[in-house]
């Protein structure tokens, strides 16, 4: 049977076919759908769970592998930074049943904070790496990835990119291999990473890495495809597809799918068969520097861009000088469609009020609420990585407070899922070191930006089973914070008074806003807690409206300002009745629809 699958769905299918029994992930574009698909389609055979962060996901997978089950962790590229600590040492310690770590890189940075190239992790750790080019390979290479992991006693890195994750192609299915659990035996010298044990383990890792050269030179994933010998292209992942598209039979290809360690013999053989070598790869000159170090002349980043995707038009421009079509008349006519907080988003009311404050530093985080850094809120002045809002805020507050004349207060803002991810560690730092920032957890009862995943506070697991909903206020109080308030972010008066209260305190405080994401498919708990939410609509009484545009400063996409008559109106298709605009209106022109 053949089906059209995305690369992410193909990995989920592959995990099923190769007998994976345990999978864990933290949501992150473009990797999210791997675990989602496993949870939806294969949870009868594979235990699928969301971890609070990528480090926890990988460690759980390591434990599952030790206990004898083939296991898979999935994360976006920056997620591997979080999981880097177990990752590097796991390379030394090795595995029992196979362990594969999927990293989804983002050439072009569609929705990430950086464009780091995670192939560097493979070389730095001596962990073998696969780079599928399309959906079929995303599934098929997984069989070899697990076999290599077990045969060479090492975890395997599976490097995807956004285009491979999110493109669909035809995939041929196979049956599931039903593998018995590998027996767990106590092997203290293997699993206890102390210097005495890991010094020899490193030697073993190096020896296995050297042995893998043979596999790299001979495996089906690294192959020469001869066309014209005038141009030889060495490439990996989806770049192969783009190169093939542009050059067709006018070039020869060394297509690499297993890229760590690289196949030296095959590279030399290919170099001997072609006249001019181009290295086509996204992000870093990772293949290029290696091949140049082998003494093989080749052309790479001096010709091809170092940033963004190597899509066909980019390659054509680099090699043939063909300009990428640009139409000034169209560019002139276009306007932007910037992302906005949705109508009814619970972040709106909070940031509307926060943005009006003076003498505060707003330390932000990763989520939909990062949009508060833009107009009309301008209520976030730093975001860096998951959980950093609280710790950056803590450091800044300590320094502001070291100057008795400095009255700056820090407000650190992060979402519920980000709080559980790593914000909690940062908040422990605040408690322990007795600083006094104001920490705000925007609890919208779900992980929003990645498309509605459950999290430790939401009360459901990845597979939709009821579980304990961890209470953020209780957790915070357990750390010793005395000043903790839970508020309704749509109630502007309450938000304002709570900010006044927190700023006036000369101690740390934690504010938790609690209202569901407007896009959340509300469960029975939500229906009980937020009865009546999203059922009303507001409308503008245009006889009363004075055209002051204050309502538009809420940034709500449901509000339409009619320039011709200088009056606001509300799109009834979009309004879900959060009432923020009605509270902002100075003349009470915005009223509940009858």
């Amino acid at each position, binding site marked *: 049977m*053949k089906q*059209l699958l995305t690369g992410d769905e193909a990995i989920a299918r592959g995990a099923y076919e190769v007998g994976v029994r345990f999978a864990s992930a933290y949501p992150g*574009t473009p990797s999210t759908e791997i675990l989602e698909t496993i949870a939806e389609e294969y949870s009868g055979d594979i235990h699928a769970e969301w971890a609070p962060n990528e480090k926890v996901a990988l460690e759980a997978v390591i434990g599952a592998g030790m206990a004898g089950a083939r296991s898979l962790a999935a994360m976006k590229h920056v997620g591997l930074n979080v999981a880097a600590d177990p990752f590097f040492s796991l390379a030394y310690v090795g595995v029992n049943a196979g362990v594969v770590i999927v990293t989804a890189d983002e050439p072009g940075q*569609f*929705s990430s904070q950086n464009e780091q190239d995670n192939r560097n992790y493979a070389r730095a750790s001596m962990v073998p790496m696969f780079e599928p080019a*399309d959906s079929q390979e995303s599934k098929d290479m997984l069989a070899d990835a697990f076999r290599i992991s077990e045969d060479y006693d090492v975890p395997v890195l599976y490097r995807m990119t956004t*285009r491979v994750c*999110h*493109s*669909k*192609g*035809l995939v041929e299915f196979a049956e599931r291999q039903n593998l018995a659990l590998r027996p767990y035996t106590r092997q203290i010298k293997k699993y206890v990473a102390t210097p005495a044990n890991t010094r020899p383990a490193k030697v073993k890792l190096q020896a296995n890495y050297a042995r893998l050269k043979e596999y790299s030179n001979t495996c089906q994933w690294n192959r020469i495809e001869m066309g014209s010998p005038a141009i030889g292209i060495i490439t990996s992942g*989806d770049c*192969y*597809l*783009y190169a*093939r*598209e542009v050059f067709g039979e006018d070039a020869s290809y060394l297509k690499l799918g297993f890229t760590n360690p690289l196949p030296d013999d095959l590279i030399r053989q290919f170099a001997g068969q072609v006249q001019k070598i181009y290295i086509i790869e996204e992000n870093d000159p990772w293949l290029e520097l290696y091949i140049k170090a082998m003494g093989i002349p080749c052309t790479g980043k001096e010709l091809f861009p170092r940033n963004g995707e190597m*899509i*066909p*038009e980019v390659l*054509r421009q680099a090699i043939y000088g063909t300009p*990428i*079509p*640009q*139409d000034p*008349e*169209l560019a002139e*006519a*276009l*306007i*932007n*469609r*910037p*992302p*906005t*907080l*949705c*109508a009814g988003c619970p972040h709106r009311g909070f940031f509307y009020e926060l943005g009006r404050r003076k003498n505060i530093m707003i330390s932000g985080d990763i989520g*939909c609420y990062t*949009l508060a850094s833009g107009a009309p809120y301008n209520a976030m002045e730093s975001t860096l990585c998951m959980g950093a809002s609280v710790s950056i805020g803590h450091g800044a507050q300590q320094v502001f407070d070291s100057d008795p004349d400095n009255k700056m207060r820090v407000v650190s803002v992060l979402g519920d899922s980000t709080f559980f991810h790593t914000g909690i560690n940062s908040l422990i730092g605040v408690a322990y070191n007795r600083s006094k920032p104001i920490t705000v957890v925007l609890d919208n009862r779900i992980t*929003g*930006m*990645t*498309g*509605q995943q459950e999290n430790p506070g939401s009360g459901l697991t990845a597979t939709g089973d009821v579980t304990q909903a961890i209470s953020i206020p209780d957790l915070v109080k357990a750390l010793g914070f005395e000043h903790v308030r839970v508020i309704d972010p749509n109630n502007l008066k309450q938000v304002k008074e709570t900010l006044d209260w927190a700023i006036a305190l000369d101690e740390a405080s934690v504010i938790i806003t609690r209202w569901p994401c*407007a*896009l959340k498919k509300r469960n029975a708990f939500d229906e009980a807690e937020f009865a009546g939410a999203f059922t009303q609509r507001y409308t503008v009484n245009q006889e009363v409206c004075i055209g002051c*545009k204050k309502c*538009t400063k809420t*940034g709500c*996409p449901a*509000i*339409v*300002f*009619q*320039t011709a008559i200088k009056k606001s109106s509300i*799109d009834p298709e979009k309004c879900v009745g959060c009432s923020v605009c009605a509270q902002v209106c100075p003349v009470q022109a915005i009223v509940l629809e009858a």
Partner: protein
Amino acid sequence: MQTKNILLTGVGGQGTILASKLLTEGLMQEGYDVKMSEVHGMSQREGPVLTHVRYGSKVYSPVVEKGRADIIIGFEELEALRNLDYLRGDGQGIVVLNRARVNPIGVQNGSDFYPDKIEALIQARAGKLLALDASELARHLGNVRVMNIILLGALVRQMGLEAIDWPAIIAANVKERFIEVNQKALALGMALEAPVQA
């Protein structure tokens, strides 16, 4: 056969995802090699969505190149304009345009103006423009949401894909109670020819 390039463009919630799913299923059943790539912003409501579909005897890249799309289906006018530089540069490209506007926030709050003359800009670059109010047509069929399938029907006709058993593909991919209205929508779209009117 030379690979064909299709682009579907609109905003979240307009049904581009179902339309492209049905399209790729049909192409697959017809025996073509098919690749599809979808680019969308973050998960907020009404973000831009751009879907690339390529089919032929052997397809490598999943993305359509700028200047090489055989046809663009614009579910929303501004997004059609935004991606018009994907259309074939030889004046032979086809554009199916839904006369629908979803205002970006700047237009909503009065700080921006929705571009006019979009159809004229398309006309000047396309070999054929089929502009229609698919939502209005869908409303006449009794379900405004099937406007995406009307647009799919227009695409099927323009690309000469009528031989594929679309009613069966619809039946296999949509909920029972919506099968008939979707099949009607497809037939309606397939019956539209290009009365180019700017």
